[in-house]
């Protein structure tokens, strides 16, 4: 598995895992997990960039930082940490576009095959987006 970046956990209203993407430049990234319904079964995952000037998290930045595999490996690592702590939950995410969906599909399959700790299930939403559902692999 591609080496992942060190992560820092931030507990609040949401669960946040922070790391610094050190590709062409340094970018602060946050993997945020938000409860989707009151049963606490589903958590939505967002991969966000911190906008230092605005002081806020953003999803619409295309960073092209040259470290996609390492970033996605770090996201997979965050999911493992989260599912270790909350083993009965499911992590849900979607891409921002069809091309992102496809990229995530390939990368997540690669990650799960390599680390063998996650099960990745995909469903097609009525909007045409792919929904990724990640659970802790049962042995």
């Amino acid at each position, binding site marked *: 598995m591609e080496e992942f970046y060190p992560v820092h956990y931030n507990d609040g209203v949401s669960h946040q895992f922070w790391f610094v993407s050190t590709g062409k430049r340094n970018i602060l990234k*946050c993997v945020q997990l*938000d409860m989707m319904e009151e049963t606490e079964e589903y958590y939505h995952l*967002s991969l966000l960039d911190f906008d230092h000037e605005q002081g806020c998290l953003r999803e619409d930045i295309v960073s092209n930082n040259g470290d996609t595999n390492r970033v996605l490996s770090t996201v997979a690592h965050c999911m493992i940490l989260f599912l270790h702590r909350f083993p009965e939950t499911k992590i849900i995410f979607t891409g921002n576009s069809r091309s992102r969906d496809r990229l995530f599909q390939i990368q997540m399959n690669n990650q799960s095959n390599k680390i063998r700790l996650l099960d990745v299930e995909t469903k097609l939403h009525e909007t045409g987006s792919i929904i990724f559902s990640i659970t802790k692999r049962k042995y």
Partner: protein
Amino acid sequence: MKSKESKSIDLSKELEYAMKVAKDQPSPKMERIKPLIPSIIASLKNTDSSDCA
């Protein structure tokens, strides 16, 4: 020109600042998909829906 050590300290301070500022900020992505959550969950619970793995 900054040394590697001072850059590392700056980065660590920036990370600390970001974690403090954004601690309870809602995810813009989560906000965007909120209206779709019921249908997303329905898709996940429906075992007959298309599996595109």
